[in-house]
């Protein structure tokens, strides 16, 4: 994998921001797109844009073929047993809500329990709060060590035969911690619970096999893996998806409609109401091709990020005794949340931005984790992807030096 060559594919990275070359370290929020993806979108609209599935004309046949080929690529990427188990949604959030509405509303009864980890993104927490309120089910939380790793020994205390659903992130978007999904799945299946995995921060960054992990549902977003915005995927086991009620009603998801009632289409279309985002699917397929063909596979991304995050932790600690880094030391994704002395993350991020360095500041949609576990309101977060380099880390360190200097003068 040649990072310098890869960077050539990303026009956005070649910009000056505030007069400095852009260092983009907000990849956990969204990733940049290589020209291969941008070109695939352009080609789609210039050559074969059409509505799918129902159009008996050449553009329609070609758009339909491209849409379903994209699904097959997605299925291969996460090792799903068949394309029909991969449903196109807008993003990971919609995928998780789909499970909460269609599966959760159907199976949960008063007194049932939904088990979450305490580091869930709001998108894998709020939908379960909503469904719990409507069904009378109850949320429980897994015991964790303070660094964000799971306390497997105490798991049986909260994972019981009352647990119907276990919902966990595969990788934390704040701590970078990678959760032991396989162990969780085994324990959950032993008590008859179904496992919903939020793969927003894992699928783009490391090899994920739904078969090997034996997860029941997995959701992720295309925009976090160099695909376009507005496209995401929900994988589900066929027998679960077939038993579930549909989610959104409308065109394409039906088999037959009368004024009084309807019957549902086969998988995956049963869950895809209305005109799908064909452009998004085509762009996501181009992103998967990019990962497989140019990057040489997602394992290369994982190795590269591991190197960057270890380098960054070392450099930051050497340079700044006042820095505090959250999350585990090892077995972590390329995500680095930190606080910088007493400085508020908003102020840190603004000064970094003036140096061309883009990071994120805030609660990163994990408010309860911040308040209850980290005991800070907000953190800074630098997050890496395939096109970042050690020089980017050096620029971050240098820019943090400027932050320190700036606030020591004015405040």
């Amino acid at each position, binding site marked *: 994998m040649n990072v310098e060559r890869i960077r050539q594919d990303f026009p956005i990275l070649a910009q000056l921001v505030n007069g400095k070359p852009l260092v983009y370290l907000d990849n956990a929020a969204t990733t940049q797109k290589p020209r291969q993806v941008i070109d695939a979108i352009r080609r789609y609209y210039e050559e074969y844009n059409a509505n799918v599935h129902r159009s*008996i004309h050449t553009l329609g*046949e*070609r758009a339909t073929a491209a849409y379903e080929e994209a699904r097959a690529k997605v299925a291969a990427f996460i090792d799903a047993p068949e394309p029909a188990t991969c449903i196109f949604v807008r993003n990971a959030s919609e995928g998780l809500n789909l499970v909460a509405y269609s599966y959760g509303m159907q199976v949960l009864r008063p007194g049932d329990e939904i088990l979450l980890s305490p580091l869930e993104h709001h998108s894998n927490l709020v939908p379960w709060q909503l469904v719990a309120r409507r069904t009378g089910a109850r949320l429980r939380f897994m015991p964790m060590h303070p660094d964000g790793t799971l306390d497997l020994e105490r798991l049986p205390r909260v994972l019981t035969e009352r647990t119907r659903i276990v919902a966990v992130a595969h990788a934390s978007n704040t701590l970078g911690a990678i959760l032991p999904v396989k162990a969780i799945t085994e324990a959950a299946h032993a008590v008859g619970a179904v496992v919903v995995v939020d793969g927003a921060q894992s699928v783009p960054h490391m090899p994920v096999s739904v078969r090997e992990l034996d997860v029941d549902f997995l959701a992720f977003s295309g925009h976090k893996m160099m695909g376009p915005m507005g496209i995401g995927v929900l994988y589900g086991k066929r027998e679960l998806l077939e038993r579930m009620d549909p989610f959104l009603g409308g065109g394409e998801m039906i088999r037959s409609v009368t004024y009084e009632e309807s019957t549902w289409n086969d998988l995956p279309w049963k869950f895809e109401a209305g005109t799908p985002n064909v452009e998004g699917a085509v762009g996501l397929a181009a992103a998967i091709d990019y990962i497989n063909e140019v990057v040489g596979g997602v394992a290369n991304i994982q190795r590269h990020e591991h190197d960057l995050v270890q380098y960054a932790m070392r450099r930051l600690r050497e340079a700044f005794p006042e820095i505090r880094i959250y999350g585990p030391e090892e077995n972590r994704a390329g995500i680095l949340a930190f606080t910088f002395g007493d400085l508020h993350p908003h102020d840190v991020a603004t000064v970094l931005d003036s140096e061309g360095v883009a990071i994120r500041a805030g609660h990163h949609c994990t408010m309860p984790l911040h308040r209850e576990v980290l005991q800070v309101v907000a953190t800074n977060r630098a997050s890496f992807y395939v096109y970042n380099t050690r020089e980017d880390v050096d620029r971050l360190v240098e820019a943090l030096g400027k932050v320190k200097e700036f606030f020591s003068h004015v405040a």
Partner: protein
Amino acid sequence: MSLEHDPRYAVNLNELYKQVLMDHFARPRNKGRLDEADFTVHLENPTCGDTIEVQLKVRDGRVEDVRWQGHGCSISMASASMTTQAIKGKTLAEAAQFLSRCRAMIKGEPGDYKELGELQALSGVAKFPVRVKCATLAWNAVEEGLKRVQP
């Protein structure tokens, strides 16, 4: 690749609407209802609302008789006519095997499909994902019927 240069999507009417196919469309075989059917399957194509009903009479593990009726385009009607003609007299296992070969053909899998006889006329449909649903409607109905015989 622009459409003009993509042979995959060129429409050749004579290849799609082969003579034998149009003949079955104009003069459908086995159309109607059985007096005493063992199994009746009713299916619907969600793309266009077309419907088909297939009836099977099974004796000693063989398709002794089969009839169909329905509304649809030339391809779905011709497919029903040819398919019912082809499986009549076959054992249940032979009929199932025959249909799985038909599916391989329509998925565009390379191979020799001579044993499918007239059904080869549907090979041109493989290029048209939306029309594939027309061709397979009768197959789905027959397969559903075979499954009910031997669940």
